[in-house]
């Protein structure tokens, strides 16, 4: 029985897949001897050598672009981007190449690669380090988007992402890199890449979230429980493809739903979930869907950051409002 942090679980999954498949490579800035700015790749270079754990120059386009070339040749590159603020050049490679190589060659060339990046705020990081732009990736056809919310899920989902035959964007909620410990055994068991995770059963309202906001969401569920409101908590985990059925089924039961995310409100992935409910769950809805999200503002620097971050209190308030609606 070993308790691990989320970032340790990432390292474990990387080591596991590198061990089981010599085609797995790690590329990124400072992933080698430094072990990554968050230590996610710590120790890998000693264990697997510098051919397979490769420090790149400061070139995010290259991290993605070289991975496309490697993947086309049968390797399974896992690229690390240091912070979400530096991932945008990667969109070009993901959208124009990685996500479509299989379809544009009708299966001749494939692109099994993973881009990992920490995301989100709340750790008082410098400018451009705290954004939550996961929604951008969910609009790109041919891409999987995965976000773990606990050490065990990080381990299982990353195994699945690396073993997957197609490109995956794997976003890591850095606020909880070290704040939660959980038992994680190196079982090699992957978690399916197209299933939401039910974290708490409840009958009154469905709270849907992912990443670090799962913490506030579960806290809110506890608070609500003391008031007699039993929330069902769903961790989306695999945003794309979205397992809408699990969410719809839950709301069929509860009749109420709030979606919680850190990203800005407009066109955040909460919109997609609320939209699915408007489309496929309307008759089950007893109250308006609520979105508890960041504001449509530039992520503030640390001094005002706390104003931006959704809180458990906001989730509780939204849930109460939903319960009171009639």
């Amino acid at each position, binding site marked *: 029985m070993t308790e691990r942090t989320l970032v340790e679980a990432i390292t474990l999954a990387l080591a596991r897949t590198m061990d089981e498949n010599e085609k797995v490579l790690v590329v990124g800035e400072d992933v080698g001897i430094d072990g990554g700015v968050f230590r996610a790749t710590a120790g890998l270079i000693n264990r697997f050598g510098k051919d397979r754990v490769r420090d790149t120059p400061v070139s995010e386009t290259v991290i993605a*672009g070289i991975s*496309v070339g490697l993947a*086309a040749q049968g390797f399974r590159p896992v690229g690390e981007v240091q912070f979400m603020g530096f991932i945008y050049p990667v969109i070009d490679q993901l959208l124009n190449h990685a996500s479509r190589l*299989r379809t*544009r060659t009708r299966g001749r060339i494939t692109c099994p690669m993973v881009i990992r990046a920490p995301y989100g705020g709340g750790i008082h990081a410098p400018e451009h380090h705290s954004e939550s732009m996961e929604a951008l990736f969910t609009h790109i056809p041919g891409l999987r988007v995965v976000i773990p919310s606990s050490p065990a899920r990080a381990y299982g989902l990353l195994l699945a992402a690396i073993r997957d035959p197609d490109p995956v964007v794997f976003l890591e909620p850095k606020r909880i890199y070290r704040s939660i410990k959980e038992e994680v055994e190196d079982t090699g068991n992957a978690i399916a890449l*197209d299933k939401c995770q039910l974290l708490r059963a409840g009958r009154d309202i469905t709270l849907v979230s992912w990443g670090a906001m799962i913490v506030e969401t579960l806290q809110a569920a506890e608070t609500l429980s003391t008031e007699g409101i039993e929330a069902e908590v769903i961790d989306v985990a695999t945003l794309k493809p979205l397992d809408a059925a699990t969410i719809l089924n839950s709301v069929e039961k509860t009749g109420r739903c709030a979606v919680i995310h850190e990203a800005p409100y407009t066109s955040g992935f909460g919109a997609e979930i609320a939209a699915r409910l408007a489309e496929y769950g309307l008759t089950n809805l007893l109250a308006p869907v609520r979105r508890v999200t960041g504001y449509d503002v530039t992520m503030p620097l640390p001094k005002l950051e706390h104003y931006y971050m959704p809180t458990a209190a906001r989730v509780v308030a939204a849930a109460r409002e939903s319960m009171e609606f009639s």
Partner: protein
Amino acid sequence: MPPQNDPSNVAAAFSIPFTRYLAVDGSVEEELPDFAHDPAALIPLYRAMVLTRIFDEKAIALQRTGRLGTFPSSLGQEAVGVGAASAMLPEDVLLPSFREQSAQFWRGVTMKEVFLYWGGDERGSNFEGPREDFPVSIPVASHFPHAAGVALAFKLRDEKRAAVCIGGDGATSKGDFYEGLNIAAVWSVPAVFLINDNQWAISVPRQKQTAAQTLAQKAIAAGMPGEQVDGNDVIAVRDAVARALKRARSGNGPTLIEALTYRLTDHTTADDAHRYRSDEEVSQRWKEEPVSRLRNYLVSQDAWNKKDEEQLLSVCKEEVEKSADEYLATEPEPVSEIFDYLFKELPDDLRAQREFAIARIGGNEHD
């Protein structure tokens, strides 16, 4: 010129060599490289250039009559692709931009496939021949980092193969061109980067792309060798690419080659070059074009005559027509194909969309 300074303190110095064997009129300017000693050995290169030119003509004709999409002719630049591809081994990998059908044909991509691609059919990139070659890259320069990745794969597997990446003069202005070169050099991977410097990027002339005197010197930024060749001399192109491939295969890292040539026609069938350049400029450049240059040389060596030429033209035309017919006879794919290659296994949410798409058209193509 660098700012005035004590010239004794030189941190680094560089030069960019230039290579041409055949003068504009086809006469020999420098002693020919080994592969070109026997003129007969050059006939396949000649044939490949002629075939491409006839293919391009046909493609334009098909486009004009609504049977092909926008098409980029390679008129005048056939020596670049043919020179490069003929220096490669089958097990090498080509990563072409959108104007290198001449290289693709040599590599074994069929004319039917190239027609399919520009006709708007993804099967055109599912090459039966060179299975590992990349499809053409439309987003300018975005494939340069891929070439570094492919080459790295070869290096990691200790294979004596190389990646050959071709882009235009316009491509050298993009960040991914530069990043691709830089990583290839610092990781010393077996890649050859070849610039088809046809003097134009749509309407923007070479001089407005960059203040650099040569494009080859962009290699210096990455710390790799750069050289310039006459891109209308197929011997020079093949020679330079062959030398670069040799370096690559011997573990000495990548090379950048700039092939000076000229785009003799419109950018694509969607363009009208008369809007931005003069007929005079173009006719001047016709004097330098690669097909007649090599033909003149072959004729001067008694390795080619009028009859050969006529026969070649008729054979090529026949082949091109046959391929066009095959292309035109190709049944379109069913709607399911827009879903079925997106992932190895179709996720559930796409399955529903796929069913909807099929149901909605029923038996018809269009609903």
